[in-house]
């Protein structure tokens, strides 16, 4: 292990954290502008051209705000909780490959921070740790609303983690590996979203619940819980929660892009490896826009419906999709996978539709 290698790792980690933090700042602006556009407003456009300096202004404002700690709060955990929330969001990105190896200053440099042979499991492990920050924030605030928000989020995240974990399985099976680079390379020429569209849909829905985004933002439902787990937080501590949510959105989008949308693959990437990060960036932005679009479109789901949907619809469907993928691979008939899984998906949608209509009749 030479010192140049350690230097390379440090530089790559620094770049990754820098990208995630600036990405977070500009994602808030992107979200506000996109939401405004959808709601026929203009959005923030005063600070700098097109409002480009708005994130800087927001950051400065948050730094100068007073930080309050409730008198009856558990001081240690109250301070620790925002940190515990941010760190998993940042280190999750370590296993995502940005491109093939490139030559830089006469060195062969791989464009990922850590190329683990258990990359997918690493993602599962770190994302399962992420729930602690929110639970501890809710508990240490010593506030009923915050505690309820924390409990809701832990129940929700554990429930949707199952469907999320099963949604990884088709990608692992199709690539025959848990290494992220192998999974990306196996998507040549067909992206896994083509082979396993239903698995991709389950993954995207479950990740929305994992990052507590609308329409699954029950832990911070304003109308019933004032703000949920971060009710008592202000100033930079609140900003850390905010940062964790948006950094997680970026990371989750990049994981989805890597597992199902071909990662850094794209036309011409064989000749020019530097196109890889660009393609990945474009895919991430498209997926992020989808998340923002969903927030602008759907109302929040009621809590019991959310849990019923996770356990009674998403989990059985994910199991079926896993079985179908394995079947298609064993029989060596890959065309069978999209056909059967789409049939299963349509059947599920029809059953949910029927159940909802029956409920509506019973009420009328």
């Amino acid at each position, binding site marked *: 292990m030479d010192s140049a290698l350690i230097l390379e790792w440090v530089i790559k980690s620094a770049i990754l954290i820098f990208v995630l933090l600036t990405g977070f700042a500009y994602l808030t602006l992107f979200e506000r502008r996109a939401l405004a556009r959808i709601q026929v407003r203009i959005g923030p456009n005063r600070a700098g051209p097109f409002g480009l300096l708005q994130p800087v202004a927001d950051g400065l404002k948050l730094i100068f705000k007073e930080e309050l700690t409730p008198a009856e709060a558990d001081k240690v*955990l109250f301070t620790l909780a925002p940190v515990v929330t941010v760190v998993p969001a940042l280190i999750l990105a370590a296993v995502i490959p940005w491109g093939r190896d490139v030559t830089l200053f006469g060195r062969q440099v791989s464009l990922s921070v850590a190329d*683990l*042979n*258990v990359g997918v*499991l*690493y993602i*599962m*492990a*770190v*994302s*399962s*740790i992420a*729930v*602690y920050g929110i*639970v*501890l924030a*809710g*508990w240490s605030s010593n506030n009923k609303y915050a*505690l309820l928000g*924390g*409990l809701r989020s*832990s*129940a929700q*995240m*554990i429930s949707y*983690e199952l469907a999320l974990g099963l949604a990884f399985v088709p990608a692992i099976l199709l690539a025959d*590996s*848990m290494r992220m680079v192998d999974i990306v390379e196996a998507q040549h020429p067909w992206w896994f979203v083509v082979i396993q569209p239903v698995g991709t849909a389950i993954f995207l829905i479950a990740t929305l619940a994992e990052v507590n985004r609308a329409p699954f933002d029950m832990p911070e439902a304003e109308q019933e819980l004032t703000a949920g787990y971060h009710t008592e937080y202000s100033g930079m501590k609140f900003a850390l929660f905010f940062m964790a949510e948006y950094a997680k959105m970026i990371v989750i989008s990049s994981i989805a892009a890597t597992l199902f949308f071909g990662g850094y693959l794209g036309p011409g990437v064989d000749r020019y490896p530097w196109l890889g990060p660009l393609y990945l960036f474009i895919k991430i932005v498209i997926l992020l826009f989808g998340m923002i679009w969903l927030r602008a479109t759907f109302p929040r789901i009621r809590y019991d419906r959310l849990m019923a949907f996770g356990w009674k619809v998403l989990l059985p469907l994910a199991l079926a999709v896993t079985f179908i993928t394995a079947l298609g691979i064993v029989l060596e008939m890959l065309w069978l996978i999209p056909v059967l899984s789409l049939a299963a998906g349509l059947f599920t949608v029809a059953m949910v539709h029927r159940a909802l209509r029956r409920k509506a009749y019973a009420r009328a």
Partner: protein
Amino acid sequence: MTNLVLFLVLAVVAVVTALGMLLSRNAVYAALFLVLNFATVAVFYILLEAPFIAMTQVTVYAGAIMVLFLFVIMLLGAERLPGTEPLPWQRPLAIFLALVLAVEAGYLLFARRAAGGMFASAAPDFGSPQAIGTMLFNRYLLPFEVTSVLLLVAMVGAIVLTKKEKGGRE
């Protein structure tokens, strides 16, 4: 050399977190110390070149089971632990079992060393996901299936317990 230093530091962390878990009077802190302990054990597995087990350890124990523990502690509001021991026979039994474990471990370590050679060093692909998968689904298929059936039974049992009895009052 680096491995030895890492191991020593980690061992201290593991012992301290375990003691913290036992000695803290607040159930939430005890649970958090246990989480740290699980994480430390996961790093031990990485040192032993078993990344699969390490990740599973974090996902299952630190990520799923301990979250449920915390969930229950918060739901019941049972943060304050009672001062007295609720099960009086537990402490002597625990000491006895710990002694048995120490004697057994010591016997294994010293008897094996006397017989020449410690333990066989790991194969090159030891602990890789492929090797573990092949092992699990070929050689240990029956125990694997039995375990999964056991877990299924436990799950069904939990669901049955939460159901309202028929004809009973709401």
